[in-house]
Structure formats: structure tokens, C-alpha cells
């Protein structure tokens, strides 16, 4: 139970933070190598860019959990509470459809790149390792959206949500 709660609250967060730390360290040692050791690294930049892709798509899902995505509330707020709830459900369903589409197309890109054995220029890492961040992000996001939909119809959970915000 506690493990589940921990996973719910921290799963994407910990991974995204890890990716961000990797980005900072790689770029920092790139500068250090250039000036202190007087040798340029040819792979640090490439690896940092790949960590960046991971950081962003993990955070995209983390941001669903934290209701942090930037939205425009203005129009919705014109309506009464009942209509607002309907709008929320429609919005979540459309978003969910997009997340699934993203996971599906992302997966097909990963498979295509994997089959063709594409590799990165400097580090020679297989590119599917980089691109799998996208279907993973889409999949995690769709899971989080189902969770939000559940919160929407479970007022106790919803109240808890507001408190933690």
C-alpha cells in the first residue's frame, strides 16, 4: 500500500530529477574538461540532449499528476459547476486520446528505428533507447489521465488533491 502511494507520488518525479541531474553534470564536466583539462569531450553534449528528451517526457506525465500543465480557465469559468464538470470530462477524454495516439505513434517510431539499427553519431548509442522516452511519456500520461478522471468522480480524492496543491 505504502509502496503504491510512493510510486503514485514519486515515480516520474524521481526519474525526471535523475535525468535533470545527469544533464547538469554532463554539461558542467564539458566546461571543466575544456578549460581545466584542455580537452573537449565529443559525447557529453549528445548524451545531455538525450537526457533532456527523457526529462521532458517524464515531466509531462509528472505534471499531469500535479495539475501543472498550463491551461486557459477563462472560458470554462463562464459556465456553472455542472457544465464545468462536463467540460472537464470532455477535455480529459480528448487529452487521453492524444496521449494514447502519442504512445502508439511513439512506439511505432521506436520499432522502426530499432529494426533499422539506427545509432547516435558520437556515442553510438542505439537511438531507440532515446526515443522510447516518447511512448513511455504518452503511456504514463494516459495512465495519469485515467487517474484524474477517477478523482473527478470521487469527491473525497478530489478534496485531498486540492489540499496537496
Amino acid at each position, binding site marked *: 500500500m505504502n509502496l503504491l502511494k510512493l510510486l503514485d507520488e514519486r515515480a516520474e518525479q524521481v526519474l525526471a530529477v535523475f535525468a535533470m541531474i545527469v544533464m547538469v553534470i554532463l554539461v558542467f564536466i564539458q566546461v571543466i574538461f575544456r578549460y581545466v583539462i584542455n580537452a573537449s569531450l565529443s559525447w557529453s553534449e549528445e548524451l545531455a*540532449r538525450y537526457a*533532456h*528528451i527523457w526529462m*521532458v517526457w517524464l515531466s509531462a506525465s509528472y505534471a499531469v499528476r500535479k495539475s501543472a500543465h498550463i491551461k486557459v480557465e477563462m472560458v470554462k469559468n463562464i459556465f456553472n459547476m455542472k457544465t464545468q464538470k462536463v467540460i*472537464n470530462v470532455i477535455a480529459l477524454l480528448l487529452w487521453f486520446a492524444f496521449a494514447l495516439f502519442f504512445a502508439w505513434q511513439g512506439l511505432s517510431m521506436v520499432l522502426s528505428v530499432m529494426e533499422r539499427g539506427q545509432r547516435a553519431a558520437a556515442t553510438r548509442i542505439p537511438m531507440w533507447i532515446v526515443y522510447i522516452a516518447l511512448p513511455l511519456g504518452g503511456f504514463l500520461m494516459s495512465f495519469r489521465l485515467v487517474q484524474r478522471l477517477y478523482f473527478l468522480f470521487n469527491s473525497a480524492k478530489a478534496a485531498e488533491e486540492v489540499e496537496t496543491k
Partner: protein
Amino acid sequence: MTIAFLFGSLILYIALNIPIAISLGLSALTTLIFASNVSYGMIVQQAATSLNSFPIMAIPFFMLAGILMSKAGISKRLLNLANALVGSFTGGLAQATILASMFFSAISGSGPATVAAIGSFMIPTMKDNNYDKGFAASITATAGSIGVIIPPSIPFVVYGITGEVSIGAMFLAGIIPGIIIGLMLMIFSYIISKKNNYSAVYKRVGIKGLIKAINDAKWALMIPIVVLGGIYGGIFTPTEAAVIAVVYAIFVGLFVYREMSLKDLYDGFAESCLVAGTTMVIIALAISFSYLMTVEQVPRTIANFITNFSENKLVILLLINVFLIFVGAFIDTISAIIVLTPMLLPVVTQVGVDPVHFGVILVANLAIGFVTPPVGVNLFVASNIGLVSIERIVRSIIPLFIALIISLILITYIPFLSTFLPEFFL
């Protein structure tokens, strides 16, 4: 037809309260399904490759740096310094809010982050000292716009990448216009304060007190020197400079001020993932939207439309400013830059506007958009942290909005203000 699908569905999705990033992706998808033969895979491929860029990584790094600087106690000392400098004037708290926002702008690349850092302390303080709360929140929101004009600046990074203009040159170009906006806001808030009898709260600190405040803030004041000096001294690229700022903030927080715990550090990283993640997702999906516009030749059509209307540089700039103020009211800065730069840059360069100067005009307009309803991020942040309703803020913002417009006119029609520093240093 394709254009109608693209823009029509975007407006619908945004109105439905779907996040801006997802709305951009969904409208691209809608267009692919109903009105275009570009393949579906384009959206996902663009979502990966747009992030696979070293220059664009300056954005998450500058966001991380800004967040860590607050946690390290750096913004607090900048506030103290601002109060020591101008706190004893008429409307001293408002003046200090503007000055502190300008200081903080020099270490943060984001408008809303500047509002949050300065406003969370200054709005309550102003309210406690009988300032109108609408005015307190609106001065913080408008001053926060300077965050994206004085370097570093996230919108300048996005413009530099989209328009293939040097990010370093853009940063230099923003310095004088940022100071002008700050001074203009100070003049207007002086007049308002005089009218409302907002007297000074702080006593004059004298030269000794000032030296102490400067000394306390010295680690903060070093940051622009390290970051900008490093970029222009040829030591590192803008992205690397942002990482140096991150490492610097960690160092100051852990070892100099010792106000940041390891847990604060982790929280700072987590918070920045959230802020950077949501921003970068907008970029990743705005690219698909912009891709479809290019395929449908929208930039070319718009360019022809404008140049058919007039070929006079001053008229074109006026038209573009009016258009941008309108756009800024509705669209967030980042997606606006990605979508508009390819449309407008060819038009203005054709009539002889410098791309660096145009970048400043574009970003200044969109920065005004931060405080114009319905979509004004700075308004939302100021409203949240100051517990003041948006309506109340909007009512008191009008004179300050005029100050921003006057600054914008100066920036637009005196190119020298933007181009002098880049031409001098580069």
C-alpha cells in the same frame, strides 16, 4: 481549409480547458486526420527532435537556476538591497518591487518566475502598509515582464533558435530596453503613489547601511557577471552559462549562505522538472503546429498580405505591434514565438529591420501579453501568491499598461536602444 482546421480546432481545444501544449498537438492531429496528407508520425518525430537541441537546453537550465537561487537565499538579499536603495522614496515599496524585479531579471530568464520570487514577499508587505492590493499585485505582475527582457531570457533563447539569430546578441540587446521599461514603471508608480499618499516605509539607510546591503548581496550581484561575462568573454555558450549558474546557486546555497538543505536541493530539481517540463512540452508540440503552417505556406501568405498593404517600415512595425498585442492577450509567449517568428521575420527583414531589433520588439510585445487578460501568466501568478482577484488586478493595471506601451513605442522606433550593445560588444 487546412488552415481553418488548424486554427479553429486550436481555439476550440484551448477554450475547452485542455493544456496549451496538448491543444497544439491535438489541433495538428485533427488537421492530419481531416485536412492534410502529412503522415501521423510527424508529430512524434518533431516532439523528439525539437528537444534534441543543445541551445534549447538553456531553457530548463535557466529555470533550474532561478528556482535554486530563491532556495539559496539569493532573491531575499536582492530584495533587501532594493529596499535599501529606493525604499525611502515616495511609494518606496513599489519602487523597491520594480528595482528588485530588475535585479532578479538579471539572474532569471522567466517572467512568471520573477513575479513569484519578488511578489511572494512584496505583495503581502505592500498590503500590510495600506497599499491598494490591486495596485500591489499589478505592479509586481508588470515588473515581472522585465524578467524576459533583461538577460538571461527564455523567450530570447526560443527566438534565437527559431529565427537563427545569435542568442548572445539577443541577450545584449535586451539590457537597455529592460532598463527603460523599469524606469518607465518607476515613473508611473511614483505618480500613482503620490496621488494615493503611499509614503516611505523604510528610513534612509545611509551610506553604511547601503554598503552592508551591497555586501550581503554580493554573491547575488556576481551572478550576472559570471553568466553574461562568461558568455561574452568567450568562455562558454549560453547553455553552458546556464549550467554554471545552476552550479553557482548550489554552491552559494549549500556552502556560503548555508540556507539550502539537501532536501531543498532535491525539491528545487523536482520543481524545475515541473516548470521546465510543461514549458518544453509546449515547444515540442508547437513545432508540429508550425510545421503544418509551413507546409500550407501560411508564412508566405501572411508576408504577401502585409507587404501588399504597405511597404513602409514604420507602418509595418506599427501593424505588427498592434497584431502582437492582440495575440499576446490570448497566446502564451513560447508558442507565439515559435509560430510567429517564421511568419514575421522575413517580412521585417525585407524592409530593413535588424533581426536582433525585431526579436526585442517581438518579445517586448509578448511580455506585455504576460499582463493582459484573458491569458496573462503574470496576472495568474500575482493573483495566486497575493490572494487578489484577477478582476481587481486588471482594474489597477491600466496606468502601468500605458507605461509598458510607451516603452514599447520607444523600443520599436529607436532601434539603437536594442542594437547598440550587440554592435559594441560583438
